[in-house]
């Protein structure tokens, strides 16, 4: 029975991926990509990784889907005409080249998959070392332990990359604020925001707090808060505005906090990024949560800052 569900899931993933690449209209491809993200979250859950499932659903399907949809809307406005309903027919030579590359890629993936299935691992050395070292950090969630304590160089660079992406988007947009879809003037939408926005904030903050001991963490919580920001922007309660000092601080908070703690430890004579205690983990995670939420919401709005809207 499990095999049937897993096979169905794998087939669905392949079909959805194909649909989002080959499908005609751009809007349809975006929707297929969002559904693909959700199905991938299901696959992660089936593999027993709730952290990855939550991150995939929140970031991959949720926030990325919103970014793609708003980019599609802006693209349509720029072009002035509705997006073409079907992609123009590719030449036969290009189609044959695409088929050849697809076959080679499939063969490579199949070969790697077969090798991975047959390989015998060295016996989970890293997992054992992690299980032994985790209680000393005061954390109960091994994923948070790896992200913030044991392999935190990768995480601090990830947060810096997010900041760099935001700076790049501001450089591309320049002084012009990207347009936003007109706020939905529907009483039902207002009621939805009034009920859902506070719940979303609670869930986002809970994911941060719970990330230390159980599935959760700064990335998942930050993505959920960014989704709340997207909701407020779409309903008109937040509007594009020039950058303010608070938002600028929020944008750099994650990188600065992580870098300051890491370099501070180096200055005190400890190894780089060796955290002094569990309080440092929670401080860094909170700063990362704020940065991720603000960055993703500002990337969606396409503006330098956000201010209160018509309310």
């Amino acid at each position, binding site marked *: 029975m499990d095999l049937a569900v897993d096979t169905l899931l794998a087939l669905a993933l392949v079909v959805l991926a194909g649909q989002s690449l080959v499908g005609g209209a751009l809007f349809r491809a975006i929707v297929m990509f969002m559904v693909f993200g959700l199905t991938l979250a299901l696959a992660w859950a089936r593999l027993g990784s709730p952290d990855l499932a939550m991150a995939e659903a929140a970031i991959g399907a949720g926030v990325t889907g919103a970014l793609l949809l708003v980019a599609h809307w802006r693209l349509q406005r720029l072009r002035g005409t509705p997006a073409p309903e079907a992609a123009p027919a590719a030449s036969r030579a290009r189609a044959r080249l695409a088929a050849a590359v697809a076959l080679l890629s499939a063969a490579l993936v199949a070969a790697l998959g077969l090798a991975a299935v047959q390989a015998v691992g060295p016996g989970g050395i890293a997992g054992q070392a992690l299980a032994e070292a985790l209680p000393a950090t005061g954390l109960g969630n091994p994923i948070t332990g790896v992200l913030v304590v044991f392999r935190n160089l990768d995480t601090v660079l990830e947060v810096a990359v997010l900041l760099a992406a935001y700076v790049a988007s501001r450089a591309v947009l320049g002084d012009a604020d990207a347009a936003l879809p007109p706020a939905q003037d*529907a009483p*039902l*939408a207002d009621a939805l925001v009034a*009920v*859902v926005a506070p719940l979303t904030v609670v869930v986002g903050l809970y994911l941060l707090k719970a990330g230390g001991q159980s599935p959760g963490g700064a990335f998942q919580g930050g993505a959920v808060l960014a989704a709340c920001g997207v909701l407020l922007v779409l309903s008109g309660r937040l509007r594009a505005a020039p950058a303010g000092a608070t938002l600028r601080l929020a944008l750099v908070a994650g990188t600065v906090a992580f870098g300051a703690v890491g370099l501070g430890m180096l200055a005190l004579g400890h190894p780089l990024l060796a955290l002094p205690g569990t309080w440092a983990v929670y401080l860094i995670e909170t700063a990362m949560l704020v940065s991720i939420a603000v960055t993703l919401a500002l990337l969606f709005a396409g503006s330098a800052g956000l201010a209160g809207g018509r309310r």
Partner: protein
Amino acid sequence: MSALEWLAAALMAGGAFFYLAGTVGLLRFPDAPTRLHALTKADNVGLLLICAALALLAGSLRQALLLLLIWLLALLAATVSAHLIARHAIGDRDAAGDREA
């Protein structure tokens, strides 16, 4: 399987049937408002039956209440998004008529 598990299985089968009915409606109905009608009505009842089945199998009252909350939130989201999609599909012409009335 105990009687509770039989009941949960029956509820889940009912929920799956409602989802199937909603999807058939989505595929077969002619235009957006009728499709939305079939989808939201059938999917919400289907989700209720599946959540009820899972609540019966849940380990504690807390999990059952969380499943009820999940159903209520899904209901809220489906309702509002169906309303917004229908407005867009019918066109702003009718919405403007409602505002003037």
